[in-house]
């Protein structure tokens, strides 16, 4: 991000806001990008986050916030256009490629992103991460899903319940 540091830039320079992560790291970012978060949008519209103030985000650590902002910066131009109408096929393909790459991450990071997207109410990111988990589950048996998600090995009781379920809902496993 190489945006000029002109403070309240009304003269063409994009307005910047500062976000402060739970571990006290400050992130300066264009207001348009941060406004993808419904939670932040109101504060920003009220003129918050500028200058030395910054908006504290006690639920988001710096590693997660930097990842969230990477998403917001990439998606801000398309969102400013009201989504798809003006976007070319190339732009859309590029965003899709970015999204696929973006969620190719460890489950611990994915988990933090799910919570952050939820807390900050970033609609596109909420869908993206939920879809990622759904894709991880798709096409697998319960045992495979358990292994994929890192469940501990089932107790004999749990195993028996799973077997009973698979008998009762046999069609769901065809």
């Amino acid at each position, binding site marked *: 991000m190489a945006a000029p540091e002109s403070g309240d830039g009304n003269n063409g320079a994009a307005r910047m806001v500062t976000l402060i992560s739970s571990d006290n790291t400050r992130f300066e970012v264009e207001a348009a990008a941060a406004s993808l978060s419904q939670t932040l949008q109101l504060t920003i519209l009220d003129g918050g986050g500028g200058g030395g103030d910054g908006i504290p985000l006690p639920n988001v650590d710096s590693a997660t916030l930097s990842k969230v902002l990477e998403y917001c910066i990439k998606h801000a131009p398309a969102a400013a256009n009201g989504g798809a109408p003006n976007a070319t096929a190339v732009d859309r393909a590029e965003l899709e490629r970015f999204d696929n790459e973006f969620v190719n991450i460890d489950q611990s990071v994915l*988990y933090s992103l799910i919570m952050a997207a939820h807390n900050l109410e970033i609609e596109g990111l909420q869908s993206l991460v939920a879809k990622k*988990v759904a894709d991880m589950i798709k*096409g697998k048996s319960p045992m495979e899903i358990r292994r994929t998600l890192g469940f501990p090995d089932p107790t004999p009781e749990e195993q028996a319940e799973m077997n009973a379920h698979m008998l009762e809902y046999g069609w769901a496993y065809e």
Partner: protein
Amino acid sequence: MASPLRHKRHECLPFDAVVLPATGTGILSAEFLEVDDGLDRISTLPDDLRRNIISRLPFKEAVRTTALAHNWRHIWGSTPLSLNDAHLLPSPGYVRAGAIDCILRSHPGPFESVHLANCYFEPYQRELALWSRLLAEQGVKDLVFVRLEGPASIGPSPSMRLPVDILRCANLRRLYIGYWRFPDTSDLPDGAGVFPHLEELGIIDTRMEDHDLDHILASSPVLKKLALIGNDLPVQVNLHSQSLQCVLFWLSVRSKINFVVVNAPSLERLIMWSYSTPHPDVRVVSAPVLKVLGYLDLGGGPLLSRNTVIKIKVDSEASPSSMIPSVKILALNMILLDSRDVQQLASVLRCFPNIETLHLKCAMARDNNYSEFFENLDPIECVQSQIKTVVLHEFTGHQIEMALLRYLSQKANQMQQLTLVSPHLAFPDERSVGEIKDELNDLLILPWASEACTLLFLGPEKKFAWTFHRASDPSILDPFLLDDGQELFRFVKGI
């Protein structure tokens, strides 16, 4: 017995929100995401976030999550139900029916979306009654309820009556039904047949009395889209609706349907399509904001003109009462045999003084001295002062098409774009492209009426590009314009 057109009718069904995975079998797949530290965090997500995840799974897989562990069991049941029986294929029919029965009984509701279009209902009459009751009680919002007829060996099945409880689903936003006999609406139990939220209604080959459709339209105050698909439909449709914006007749090949738009103050689109003419007879009494209309059938001499769509208007000269001044986009399907057909085309165009885009699909029978027909025409207002875009579909370079082009080039003062599209499945070879180019060059030497106009010659449109979904999508400004043919050449006439 399933007809070949049946498949095409099924293509009209709404898309499903959930896309099937490439492999939905549950067979062990090699590709596992790294579990890094091996800790299960996803299970600790709040319920509503896990519901959000599950709502993105095909329902069979969503059901599987109830087997994962205790803290997952309740998630599926508390996610609004999304069921599509296409996801149960290729399981045999009785397994599909058993699964549907199990889900509808065991899911505590609410039902968001239920699509049943792959089920033989005949052997499950008792279950059907229960399912219908559950659908109504659980407030289904989006319902596809289309019968699958039995295999040929069973013989033609007598038509089944749509369970009355389906008409008690008062929460519906979208409803598609198919291959039923419609319940008698003059004798409905209390609370049935009233749809305060219904926005989209599709009826496929369903036998209903004329008054049944009247009843449904009258009791659906926010209905925006109505699609009548197939043949077995009401014979006389008198459209009265304050809310309808789009009406589609799709794949009906019988001419006996009389469609009268009596009073439709919100109707913007009236679209008719079938593979073979004639399209239904249509008469517009009052549709003050109708913008998009087509395909209408014209021409073909005395035999076919009996089925002419706006016969009343064609017979008489255009008078203010027969005009539809709101129409901006008009599509005509015409057979040109002789000068009467050209006269008829002119009469029809005079009924639409404000059209800006004209789509023409012409069939010609024999050669004739066509240019004369056009030369003797009285002025046509929309051609002289309104039309900006003309698209000639299935263009072959036939004499009469060239005569028409000549006429347009000399008369259409505002024409900015003239597009010629090659016939389906007949990609023109280099020689015929060259010949057409030569013919058009002759035309381009002459001065044109409009100051600047682009002439575009396109290869054939993609097969099946013109679909029900496209025709009924309000975000597509001109649904008749497919514009996906390869550009063969282009001229810019004027400045």
